[in-house]
């Protein structure tokens, strides 16, 4: 299974972290520090796998972002590369040619998308269309709720004046 997903920028800034195995906050910080040191140091045209404490970290760079996933020693590295690519394609489709800033300002949406693709460290939805549809449906739900809420809060705000 996938133990965690980390997105790191080329400057070493964290853009997204998702943990499927229990790590304390301290461990999380340490893991990210170690991994970013290891992965950012690797040059281009090298293989996409790093061994790390008995696990394997599969990473792939898209533009300025490194997508890293940590897996068990007997998991299939190429499969994970495909999952990463899958994730990137869905992000791209959702944001319309995604860039780092999209992920920075919509970090929770990136999480929702990731949650539709992976659950508990397993791939759950191999169809890009389905993910897009599910996310869109959720967004629509949230939007209507937001409209209602904003109208109510407007009313309250007016009432308190």
């Amino acid at each position, binding site marked *: 299974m996938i133990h965690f997903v980390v997105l790191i920028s080329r400057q070493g800034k964290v853009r997204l972290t998702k943990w499927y195995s229990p790590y304390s906050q301290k461990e999380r910080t340490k893991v990210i520090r170690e991994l970013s040191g290891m992965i950012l140091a690797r040059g281009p*045209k090298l293989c*996409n796998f790093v061994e790390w404490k008995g696990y394997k970290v599969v990473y792939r760079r898209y533009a300025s972002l490194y997508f890293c996933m940590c897996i068990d020693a007997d998991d*299939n*590295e*190429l499969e994970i590369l495909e999952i990463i690519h899958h994730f990137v394609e869905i992000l791209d489709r959702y944001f319309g040619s995604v860039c780092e800033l999209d992920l920075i300002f919509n970090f929770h949406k990136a999480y929702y998308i990731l949650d539709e693709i992976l659950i*508990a460290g397993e791939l759950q939805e191999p169809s890009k269309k389905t993910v897009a549809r599910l996310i869109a449906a*959720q967004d629509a739900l949230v939007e209507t709720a937001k409209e209602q809420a904003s109208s109510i809060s407007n009313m309250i705000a007016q009432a*308190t004046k």
Partner: protein
Amino acid sequence: MAGGSSSSSSSSSTGPSLVDSLFQRSLDDLIKSLRSQPVGAEPALLSRALAEIRREIRSPDPDTKAVALQKLTYLSSIHGLDASWAAFHALELLPSPSPLHKRLAYLAASLSFHPSTTDVLPLATHQLRKDLSPSSPPNFSSLALHLLSLSASPDLARHLAPDILPLLSPRASSTTTNTKNNNNNSSPLRPKAAVATLHALSLCPDVVPLLVKPLVDCLSSPDPRVVSAAVGAFAELVSATDPSPYLPLAPEFYRLLTDSRNNWVLIKLLKIFARLAPLEPRLAARLVDPLCDLIRRSSAQSLVLECVRTLFSGFPDHDRALRLAVDKVKEFLTNDDDPNLRYLGLRALTILGPRNSWGVVESRDSVIQSLADPDPNIRHEALRLIMGMVFDTNVVEISVMLVNYAMKSDPVFANEMLDAVLTTCGRNVYELIVDFDWYVSLLGEMARNPHCAKGEEIERQLVDIGLRVRDARPELVRVARDLLIDPALLGNPFLWRILSAAAWVSGEYVEFSTNWLELVEALLQPRTSLLPPLVRAVYIQAVFKVLAFCFSSYIDQLEASQVSSLGHSTTVGGSTIECNAASANCLSDDITGTESADGFATADKPASLLSLLEKKDPFFTRESLKRILYLIETAVGPLSENDDVEVQERARNVLGLIHMLQEIPAWKTEEEGFKKDKDNGVGKIMNLMQAMFSEEIGPVSVNAQKRVPVPEGLVLEENLSDLAMILTEGDIAPSMSISFTLRSHQHMETKDEAAPSVQSTYLLAEHRKRHGLYYLPAEKDETELNDFPRAYDPLLPVSHSDATEDLVKLTEQSLIPRKVKHTKPRPIVLKMDEGDGVLPSALTTVKESKDDMLSGAIHEVLLGNEGKPSSSQKGSSNKSSGRRMKGVSDNSESVPQSKENLDLGDRENRSSSSRRSQHRSHGKGRHRSSQNNEEKEEKSHRNSTRSGHHHERHEHRQRGETPLNAVPQAPAIQDLLL
């Protein structure tokens, strides 16, 4: 709202206020301010934002709370701030009817909740149950399932398992599809429920009876996503625990393997089969063809890779399939464009292992080229693969190749290679090494590597070989000499440890040296001032030993010449060389006699010394001794004032000896007088000195401490007798003291029945058998088992006989050839006992009790519980029998019982093997018919899928139940697989 404003007026600094709500910064504001901040101001900004959030999050207004929570989630996941304090606030927001808030709350919860440290987690139970219920919107259930699969504690999983159940079953999914109006046939929740089930199962095995059957049903769902999720769940279960309980599902997996076109699913299935195939040989036979088909026709590299791995790990006997897989790996290895494939190819070959080393031999060129790959990870894998293929027949070639290559490689990898060679060759007291002369000179060569940073290990091995291998000593001394006389090496701090070993070796085994003057000069050369004090002290001590040796052998020489002068009545004026030769001749008979009789064990120092005199003609003259003395005096003299005590002390020792010698008047006179004096002057001193060093230093066993007999007054069993009292009183759960008494109990055994309290040990063993769960796992036994002699042959690795020939070919063709063929036998390597080397690796570790419970429970569900011990029984019986192994000597009464236990555990294995033999005797006819059966069944199954949902479900239920009935004699797997 009035209350809100009053609270803000009363405590404006801490309490949330309306102002906070109205002028709250949104997440975007926060992110923008963080991005626009100057470098270095981040911590201050973060702490300010955190203070703000702490205030806002306590607001009664859900919007404010939600935004605060969102900001905190951002800070915790991106900036690594601790968010565990806000767990309760996330919980507060969970019941919100607004999907926006709910989603945020679940996100915050899933990112910050930790199953073991979040203490408010039980408070979420009710809300989760509510959201999981079929009446709530599927979005909410999905969020709840996510949280459940990420941060559930065992308790939470146990309480909510019944609530997952309806989501997992197809019936509930049909109702939710009605509400959701999805055109898909099944609910989107079912796959999520399957994964959440996996999590619940692995957390608490109690829920197995409830959840496993529905999960099995998921395998036959028409919805590919449900199947995919269920297969994924089973793949995790199979790889995490004992795979044997899942064997009855093999037909189902096999059907999916042949039907499915989804690569993700196929990869998971292959993972499952990789674990199941070793348990059931017939399974392997059935799987070979589909796997080969997949390798041939699939375009997805990930799937091909998985096939290759499965074949390598689970099908070591199917040559045809292995050949196909090896060919595929060769393609991977020669793929210049894709480093990933090269890396994975090497890793796959590592799996193939020594048993099928031909696969490695065939791709030897690519493997060796990979040592020069630009990617350090690939180089590392290649090295690991090569080191896994080392046997005593090719160790020379491979080591020479690596050490030579290390000269050209970059420093990091060079040391990696040196380390690999050192560890492999030193493994298990040098079990691979036959020719120690070669190995010692290889160690010397390693020291010449400019990048060498392995000084410590080389030092250890040089000294260790000196202690253990008598035959290697002459070569060792020669290598040490070469290292010592090179002034260039003294400047490299990494080599100091090696030089220290070289100095020690040439001092301790000085009799094998050929040129003592040269040795003393090397040990005292001016550049030794570069050495650290401790190494210098070793140098001076070595000088001391050389000095003592030179003098005593000079005296022996004189003595011998006297003897010979008596025997042959030669004149004193005759040349010393003749005297030497003569004396050697007359003594040689004795020496060869003793050596041939008892080997090296009896050949003590004077004897070997004289044999050397015979061979090498050391030719000590008074002048040479004088020169040595002078040299030592001038070089060591200044060191008597050295700052370091070690150096100073040893320098003074040496100087003291020299002064003592020079005070003896005989020294001043001619050789003649010296000879006469030898009985009462120099000779006495030198004999004393020589005696001081003549005691041979040997290796010390790691178990030496255990052999020391326990002194009379020492009571080691006190706790144990206490325990006996407790145990006779009644059935009290063992407390902390047990683990302590356990140790003394083991200790007692190591002393070979010296312990009197057999009674209490027996009671303890009995108790352990009954309450195995409460005892520490038996893994610690590994160390104790050292005391039993193992069936162990130091020369032959288990399966190298077939592999060696191939690898010799490998190394002869592609590696540097050996110059000399060594035909002499391996010298004796002194070993203290079997436990001296590495721990035996054959011992399998005992599984964790939880895993045992899980697999046991699943076994019950899938196979029924007749004929098998229940999970806990099985676990404890295995454990107790494992522990009994060492208790056997103490309590013979319990032995039969333990055997019974073992038998119980083995029963299944044996029955399966007997079944196998039966099958073989039936021959081909039955095989064909059963195959027909299987085809028929598959056909009928396809019909049923076509004929509709309801019918199909019925069929599957039937299928699910068949294993239950057919368990004890032959599990259902037989019908489908024969």
